[in-house]
Structures are given as C-alpha cells and as structure tokens.
C-alpha cells in the first residue's frame, strides 16, 4: 500500500514568489492534515480536512496561505507571496478517521525562501 506522497521534496525560491505543495494521502483516508515544522520544533497544524471540507484552519495565515482539497482526495497548499520566515518543512498527513492520533505522514516538502 502506497504511503502519503508529497511533492516537491525540496523547493528554493526568492521571497515574494509563489509556491505550491501537493499531497496525495493514503487511499481511503478521509482526514488530511497540513503541518508546518520549523527547525528543532514539533509540527504545528495549519489545516485539517474531513473529505473536501476544511474543518480546522484556525492556524492557517490566510493572508498568504491557501489550501484546497477539491475532490476530497489530494490536496494543495499554496503560499503567495512567500516570506523569509516561511522557510520550513511542510508535512502532509492522513488518517483513517477523525479524532485518531495515529497519523500517517509524508516525507515533507522543505521550503527555503531566499
């Protein structure tokens, strides 16, 4: 069974440029999460989806960040424009059902903003 797939693995951009990350969760997992992980820190939730509905986006900086999961399967996280402080690893995870603490993570997308 394929795990959570993320792309790109690495992205280097200049500040003020846009960037997008893609995530394909494990088949059958209705819950999808985007986490932000800064160096030396634990992951912080940005947004959580139940199917195509964003049920928790309270930590998503909506002035520059957006996310979508149109068909309730794969998801895209976008930053526009990127700032220096956005340099981090963006992790996608999925779970079989809501409320579980057993999440399956992708390998992450490492963003460097110059």
């Amino acid at each position, binding site marked *: 069974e394929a795990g*959570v797939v993320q792309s790109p693995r690495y992205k280097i951009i200049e500040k003020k440029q846009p960037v997008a990350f893609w995530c394909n969760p494990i088949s059958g997992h209705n819950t999808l999460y985007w986490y932000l992980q800064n160096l*030396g*820190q*634990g*992951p*912080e*939730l940005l947004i*959580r989806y139940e199917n195509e509905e964003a*049920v*928790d986006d309270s930590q998503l900086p909506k002035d520059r960040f957006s996310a979508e999961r149109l068909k309730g399967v794969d998801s895209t996280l976008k930053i526009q424009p990127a700032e220096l402080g956005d340099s981090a690893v963006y*992790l996608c*995870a999925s779970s079989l059902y*809501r*409320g579980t*603490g*057993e*999440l*399956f*993570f*992708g*390998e*992450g997308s*490492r963003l460097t903003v110059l």
Partner: protein
Amino acid sequence: SQELEQSPQSLIVQEGKNLTINCTSSKTLYGLYWYKQKYGEGLIFLMMLQKGGEEKSHEKITAKLDEKKQQSSLHITASQPSHAGIYLCGAGVINTDKLIFGTGTRLQVFP
C-alpha cells in the same frame, strides 16, 4: 492552550545503553502518542496510550502513561544505532480532534 514539553532536548548514548525520554503536558492528557522522525523524513507512529497506568511495548521501546502527573515516558532498552532519530510525543486536545506535538528529543546512538 495545551503544551507538551519534552526532556531532554537531546541525548547521546553509547550503543547498548538504556535511556528514557519524558513528555509532560500542561493540561490533562486525553490520549498520548509517540512518534519517531528520522532527519529529513516524516513522522512514523510508534504507539498510543489512552489510559492512566497503561504501558505498551514495541520491540525494545516501552512507553508508559501517568495521567495524574500528566506525563508519559518512553524507555529504550539496549539502544541500537537504528534507534537514532527524533522522538516526538503528541496529545489530543480535549473537545477537539486536534493533535498537538512536543518539541522533540533528538537521540544519537554511537557504537
């Protein structure tokens, strides 16, 4: 808001030694989860603890939950280089489906 504090922040041990990592919550724990992360990779679920006093083991890794102390410990027996990585605890936030994480403990095991 609830916070999880892990100690120590980093640990360097010789192969074969035992070690313990602690996770302390600022609020009552409703489910405690341990994950491992290798550098540059995603998190891998290790185990889940839900009841006070519960203890689980996976190979040479044992985790315990002390609800009264709002604390969990992860113990590795006879550490191996394969145990190296970052160990993170996660906890469910009451009345939400949210999962928060501690800052992690970086473990290095040298031969």
